[in-house]
């Protein structure tokens, strides 16, 4: 059985992948999650000690790095799609696991910025999305982390029976990537 390590930034990302993998009909036991607690940890080799133990002994066949694109205006080095992609390539090279690694950068596909919540919001009807964004704007919450949590909570409240619209074209790339990895 192919075992894939899925490396994510936070618990919400893990939860999202668990649901999506379940939706795709893949055996959830094939996925081993590593929550790295933040984007910056993705670019530190010491955070991969446990993963490399498993990879080195042939226990893990594939590694999927899932990182938020964020915005280059907030972080010149690691922010934005291109910078994130470049930094991920660099760390994968440093770890020497190019042959078994793949990446997915979370963002709103139309703007190539943002995070998991941006991807989810990009898949709901425009009026609904506007309502949520207006609320965030009016609430005057400043930190990015608060935004993520609020987006997530609002989404859960608004769509309790249909957590994510996986049929939306914005999920196609990710679904295809997962199906290819787990086939």
């Amino acid at each position, binding site marked *: 059985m192919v075992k894939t390590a899925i490396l994510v930034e936070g618990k919400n990302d893990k939860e999202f992948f668990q649901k999506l993998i379940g939706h795709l009909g893949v055996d959830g036991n094939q996925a*081993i*999650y590593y929550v790295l607690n933040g984007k910056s940890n993705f670019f530190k080799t010491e955070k991969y000690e446990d993963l490399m*133990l*498993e990879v080195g*002994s042939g226990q893990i066949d594939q590694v999927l790095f899932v990182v938020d694109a964020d915005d280059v205006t907030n972080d010149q080095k690691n922010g934005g799609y291109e910078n994130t992609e470049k930094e991920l390539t660099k760390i994968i090279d440093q770890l020497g696991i190019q042959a078994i690694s793949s990446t997915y950068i979370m963002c709103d596909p139309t703007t190539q910025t943002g995070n998991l919540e941006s991807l989810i919001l990009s898949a709901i009807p425009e009026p609904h999305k506007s309502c949520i964004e207006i609320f965030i704007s009016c609430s005057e919450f400043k930190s990015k982390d608060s935004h993520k949590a609020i987006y997530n909570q609002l989404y859960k409240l608004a769509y309790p029976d249909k957590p994510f619209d996986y049929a939306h074209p914005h999920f196609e790339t990710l679904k295809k990537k997962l199906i290819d990895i787990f086939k």
Partner: protein
Amino acid sequence: MNKHFLTEIQITRFKCFNYFHFGMSSLSRVNLIGGKNNIGKTALMEACYIHVHSKSINSMITAIINIKYARECLNIVGNPVDNLVYFLDGTQTYQAASNLLFTEFIRSEVDATKKYTFRIIHKSKEIIDKEINANELSIIVEQINNIKFIDNFGWTDNELTSAYRAIQKDDQEANLNAFIKEFDESIESFKVIGNKPQCKINGEYRDLVELGDGLRHYISIICALFACKDGYLFVDEIDNGIHYTQLDRLWELILTLSKQTHCQLFAVTHSKEMLESFARVAKKLDERDISYITLVKDNKQQIKALTRNYDMLLDSIEQEREVRGW
């Protein structure tokens, strides 16, 4: 880290480790071992036991016999074997090297003459190297009292009685009784009367054999930790018979007493509850001198040891990642 502790070991010949180089490193004072069935967890502990017990040729022979006897004892019930050579011959070859010493045993037969080769090289460079013809072999049992092995069948009355002497010697009877009372409050005290371990319940002493296996196992582990002062304790299936509500307390005792007695402990478990309890208690006590070792087979079907330290184990448990092999 105590000087006598094993920190790394390579086993090149012994049971399932016979055809390749197997290494295990970053060992701590308390080492818990996991992995799938039949991967070699018990064999690994047996190899370590023989290794540290090989202070001399006699103690090496004794360890090899002890291990074989523990495995065979049920098979020879009703058909006793009084010849210790039978148990020694159960092992063909053994070779291991560690941060402490190098040990080797070979049983060979050339021109119908059986020979035993023993080689022990201590870190101090002291070398014991001897080849003995079978007809000249005289087995002298030499048990090292602070190196003990509790197998998955648990200890006999004799083994427990022997370890209990360490409790008496250290005046620890009251502490042992308190620990036992925590396990089962109906037990007023524990004693060895004659050669029989007994528990006092409702004012009357009852043989330990009449009580549960979990209690025997629990008492054995505590006594062994005192008996193995400055030594080593190996426990197979450590959670055998222990109720889940007692697991945290058992680990508290193990982590505390092993530190107090400078005893290095190796234990095997399949139980997720036991593993989670190990991590939880280590965190509670901030006891970082622990390792969790998973035995796995790599793509070439060779056995590998994955050693997780305190931080790696706690992170894996908190993130609910399976670490017992798959």
